[in-house]
């Protein structure tokens, strides 16, 4: 599946290189644009500026203004015109500057993007990607640190993914662009500068598959996006206390790939789901609901959730208390094991 791109980029980039998550996205976008002339990028400030996070850095210079569009300032317009371009045969990649600004586009996403293939009985495909930098921890002002992914995983017709590291970032963005379904692509902005070892000749795992990043038998930790690193750190700390935790990166938020989670929980009997989003009616609720049903007899304690609180995202001086951290994750593990 990844073949055409790999060949192309293999030439462009050295076999293995150290890249940040942000750079992985940038390289992945470049590879996708080289692989398919129908791939275009649209958004605010994605051109000369390269986006406020520089994820599209250099792309307009190399691919031109008709493939990297600095659009007018309106998100419904960005997504709504992308729908038309996709119908016309393009594969638009829309950048939403910060997750808090996706809501003006919510109507186009729920009413048109999510339903087009269904309502056209499969005659229209909408191969479009909506990139959304999300999550907190960067000391930003309002609307720049939220986690709205649950709104989209509740919306049938959309596929939703989130990358947690540089290597996944490089592959997942290309796979999302090649996917014939509309994909919401959530990028953990606080992890844009985390480094990873990228081998562009490697064979990537499928896009909609969760992955066990660390094996363990005492309890299972499930997370996605920015919280994956938090969970890996927690597992490392727990290991020092002789407690082995399994860590699973969901990667696919909708449809969920929970088989590895069920398998893990059947072994450990304990599950802690970690997410920055407020817990109420969230993705973490869905995971808890599914696991308690699938693993009813294996669970030695209820599925516990470590999430943001059911409040608006607080002023940034308070965010480290709002966001799940290593201590809160381990505290939940303790509670689960002591249940």
């Amino acid at each position, binding site marked *: 599946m990844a073949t055409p791109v790999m060949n192309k980029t293999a030439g462009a980039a050295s076999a293995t290189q150290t890249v940040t998550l942000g750079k992985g996205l940038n390289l992945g976008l470049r590879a996708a644009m080289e692989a398919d002339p129908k791939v275009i990028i649209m958004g605010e400030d994605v051109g000369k500026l390269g986006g406020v996070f520089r994820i599209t850095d250099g792309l307009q210079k190399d691919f031109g203004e008709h493939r990297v569009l600095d659009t007018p300032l309106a998100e419904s*317009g960005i997504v709504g015109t992308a*729908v038309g371009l996709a119908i016309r045969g393009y594969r638009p990649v829309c950048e939403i500057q910060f997750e808090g600004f996706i809501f003006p586009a919510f109507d186009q996403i729920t009413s048109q993007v999510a339903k087009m293939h269904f309502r056209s009985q499969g005659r229209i495909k909408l191969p479009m990607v909506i990139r959304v930098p999300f999550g907190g921890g960067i000391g930003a002002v309002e609307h720049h640190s939220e986690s709205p992914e649950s709104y989209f995983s509740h919306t049938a017709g959309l596929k939703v993914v989130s990358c947690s590291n540089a290597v996944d970032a490089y592959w997942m963005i290309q796979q999302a662009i090649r996917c014939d379904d509309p994909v919401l692509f959530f990028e953990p902005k606080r992890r844009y500068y985390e480094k990873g070892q990228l081998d562009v000749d490697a064979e990537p795992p499928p896009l909609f598959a969760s992955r066990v990043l660390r094996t363990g038998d005492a309890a299972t930790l499930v997370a996605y996006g920015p919280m994956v690193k938090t969970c890996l750190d927690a597992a490392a700390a727990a290991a020092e206390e002789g407690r082995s935790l399994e860590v699973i990166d969901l990667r696919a938020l909708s449809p969920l790939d929970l088989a590895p989670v069920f398998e893990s929980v059947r072994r450990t009997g304990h599950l802690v789901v970690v997410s920055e989003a407020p817990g109420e009616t969230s993705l973490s609720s869905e995971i808890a609901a599914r696991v308690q049903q699938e693993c009813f007899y294996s669970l030695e304690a209820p599925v516990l959730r470590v999430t943001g609180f059911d409040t608006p995202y607080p002023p940034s001086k308070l965010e480290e208390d709002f966001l799940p951290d290593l201590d809160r994750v381990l505290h939940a593990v303790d509670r689960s094991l002591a249940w």
Partner: protein
Amino acid sequence: MSSPEQWTHPEPGEAPAATAATPTAEQVIAGLRATSEGGAELVQLLTPEGERVENPEFDRYVADVTAEDLRGLYRDMVLVRRADRECNALQRQGQLGIWVPLLGQEAAQIGAGRALKPQDMAFPSYREHGVAWCRGVRPEELLGIFRGTDNGSWDPIGKRFHLYVIVIGNQVLNAAGYAMGQRFDGKVGDDDGEATMVFFGDGATSQGDVHEGFVWASVYDAPLVFFCQNNQWAISEPTERQSRLPLYQRARGYGFPGVRVDGNDVLASLAVSRWALDECRHGNGPVLIEAYTYRMDAHTTTDDPTRYRLSDELEAWKLKDPIERVRVHLVRHGDADQDFLDSVQADADQLAAELREFCVNMPDPPLERMFRNVYAEPSPQLDAQRDAFLEYAAGFAGGEH
């Protein structure tokens, strides 16, 4: 309505006329005049009495229209009206869940629809049965939407006629994007260029998406014709609830042309639409057309207009019926005899009969339809749901399913 000139060069101290919740007498009068006449800048080629009036700007766009062509436009209008009335009856008889009447807007839609070239694309709202007809979409293909068996059964790509869109305004942005694509594909610039036409109503002009469509189309020079059918009403709300100015003047704020055409004059609608599409296919888009017409029936079969509008209004508009003026014109010029009129009527009746026959025999969709085409690529989660449900449903041994 008040002339825009007084606002384009504002004099300090001078006041815009109030046009809000409680209109002034002056406005009521202006409003009524507008409603009966369409205002000074209305483009009209055929009067309600069937007189052909000269128009130096737009005549050239219909100079090639022969009597044969005019008979064709007449036939189109009679047939789509007949189909519309049949569907209305089918709803009354319980064969359709709801119907959205076209009655009164035939000329606006047939004029626009016949102006479209094969390579052009059209994005309808939910009342564009006449445009659908011109794009080769059979009335039968619309029925599923209203009977609840599908969301429209035509091929939107093959017919170059997008699916009906119900969320007011959404399709305007989708059309702007499609038109941008036509331009990016290098399909704009000469007589063979491509263009897109998007349809929406007077009420829709208030939606943010329509504004954003104006912004995108104008900054990207998209070959897009905004075809606004001002049928005077957004369900129970008159156009005054949406705007102070005649809607075609909205374009002045964006820097592209806006024209008001007599939407009950099929020849004028054809001429202005051809002009607008030509502008677009040559790279001079976008263009806004306000087709000034009237919704002669209820908003939908579930609506009750007697609650909010006077029958006098309807009577006034009946005198400007879009079909009648063409018939009178054809007959007066000896371009149509009784045989022709009868044959058209016969065709219309046959169309209606076929439509009814088709409707009453439409099968219900199979259960699996619910789970089909949710995604283009498989979703194991959804497949599991489907299998579990089909197994459950099978348990009823077809009893109630």
